[in-house]
């Protein structure tokens, strides 16, 4: 997106690098949503003054090296186990603000059990869930959230629900759990969406600081490499194909006073 386009969408300036975002070259593909979400997480932690008590739990997947980019303490979890790792870190360190950062394979396939149970216990965590409908790191295989008909390296003719089951809307599942206090679905493909996503992440971290239970922020994302599209086309494809199944917006909010 050009500066002109940003300004046309109501943006007024290009922000500086957040202090907590380390000066490292990210390994993410150009156009990937991870970089933006990392920046938002770094900004929120900095703005809320949590850099001294934030603990991030990184997943296995494209974000496996998240700990190389944000200047806080991190634990790198085994595949899918971030919510269990975070559960103990949070319970044993009540004044820490603990969050997980997970992709769809990590959170909604191999780690479904840990996700559901951490949310159901209402663990005092923020879960950032990047849903791009594909396994990026391992080379574009089918994810639990892969859409019907979507081509991946393990569904080369498109996902067939009679063979592979249906795309899993795990965010709607965790909404039903009494332990979650805040469940929302956002995206970061336009400046307006980025601003809303940041507000959601901020709300989640405040909830965690205030010990309100589990906050669950899904970011519907693109994987232009895995989807084999240009970043721009991927954004459009996401709007047209992902959003009907994974509808952006606030899904659950039990918190009356937001701050």
């Amino acid at each position, binding site marked *: 997106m050009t500066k002109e386009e940003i300004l046309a969408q109501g943006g007024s300036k290009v922000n500086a690098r957040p202090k907590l975002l380390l000066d490292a070259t990210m390994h993410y593909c150009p156009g990937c949503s991870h970089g933006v979400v990392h920046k938002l997480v770094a900004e929120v932690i900095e703005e809320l003054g949590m*850099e*001294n*008590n*934030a*603990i991030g*739990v*990184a997943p296995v997947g494209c974000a*496996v*090296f998240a*700990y190389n980019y944000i*200047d*806080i*303490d*991190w*634990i*790198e*979890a*085994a595949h899918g*186990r971030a919510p*269990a*790792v*975070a*559960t*103990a*870190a949070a*319970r*044993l*360190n009540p004044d*820490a*603000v603990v969050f997980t950062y997970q992709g769809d394979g990590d959170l909604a396939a191999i780690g479904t*059990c*840990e996700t*559901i*149970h951490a949310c159901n216990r209402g663990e005092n965590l923020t879960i950032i869930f990047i849903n791009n409908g594909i396994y990026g790191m391992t080379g574009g295989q089918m994810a639990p959230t892969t859409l019907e008909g979507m081509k991946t390296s393990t569904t080369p003719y498109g996902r067939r629900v009679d063979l592979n089951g249906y795309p899993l809307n795990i965010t709607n599942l965790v909404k039903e759990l009494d332990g979650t206090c805040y469940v929302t679905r956002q995206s970061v493909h336009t400046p307006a969406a980025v601003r809303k996503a940041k507000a959601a992440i901020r709300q989640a971290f405040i909830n965690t600081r205030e010990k309100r239970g589990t906050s669950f922020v899904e970011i519907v994302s693109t994987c232009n490499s895995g989807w084999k599209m240009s970043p721009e086309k991927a954004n459009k494809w996401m709007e047209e194909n992902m959003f009907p199944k994974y509808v952006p917006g606030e899904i659950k909010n039990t918190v009356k006073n937001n701050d």
Partner: protein
Amino acid sequence: MKEQKEVKLMKGNEAVAHAAIRYGVDGYFGYPITPQSEVLETLEELRPWETTGMVVLQSESEVAAINMVYGGASTGKAVMTSSSSPGVSLMMEGISYIAAGQLPTLIINVMRGGPGLGTIQPSQSDYFQATKGGGHGDYHLIVLAPASVQDMADFVGLGFDLAFKYRTPAMILSDGIIGQMMEKVVLPEPRPRRTDAEIAEQCPWAVTGKRGRKHRNVSTTLELESKTMEENNLRLQQVYAEIERNEVRFEEYMTDDADYLFVAFGCMSRICKKSIQQARERGIKVGLLRPITLWPFPYEAIAKLAPRMKGILVAEMNAGQMIEDVRLAVEGAVPVCHFGRNGGIVPNPGEVVDSLINQFHIHD
């Protein structure tokens, strides 16, 4: 006047729970499985979160439990779990991560008979799993084998002390007998949990949030650069070599005049002591070497005893696992035979004596 310590009567599993609270353990995460469920049950009954502040949580699975241990230990806390054989198999991935992350933790396996879902009766068939790896990669656990309820209580503290000393996971490899039987036990003196400041000093690597630190702490086991990963491995191996030098523990029983030697660990060593009594009543002089640490294994102690023996009988409740280490120690100096029962059968002392007599043709 010497203060009289209070003697209690309890199960091995219960003793673990009491000892954990008294040691000042910060967290226990576990999933019910017979024959070790009393550990979690006793902790829930004692409610240590109201006294010492210890966190106790019944997890959704053994997989979750061991990853909770990984997460908790990453923050420098003294964290433990317990399970029984099938559950410990589920934990193996996490144990490999914990070893790689050099995280001091305590894992307890109250063994039951396998393979598969197996039986809920006692067994010792996870010796290989505990001492030879179990999970992926080159790593070791310090493995302690309790033979009494008192050991169960004492090894909680010992296990954590060694785990923190060497920054490595430790395992108590127990079994359904030691876990379920009741004996007299003197519990360790209660001591407070470490403060956050003490943890920060003892574990400068702990992931606590930066807390004003200049550097940040990251608990990770991922290293894509092979050269660095090899260095990580060599660093682990150095620690293991140091543990092998310093921490071998074993017990000798009536070996001075013995012609034959039993080598047995855990509950089997107790059974063998009775077998020794029975054998000696029949004029056969037998002694016992009981490895207390299964890793590091007492190779030297066995090598030293072996030449004085006419034969060595390794008695285990499995199909022959520790015997491989005994043979490595003996290096062919004397015949080494195996006595084993499988699948949850607990042998009685007489069976072991008969096996000794038959295999070494003692009355021929």
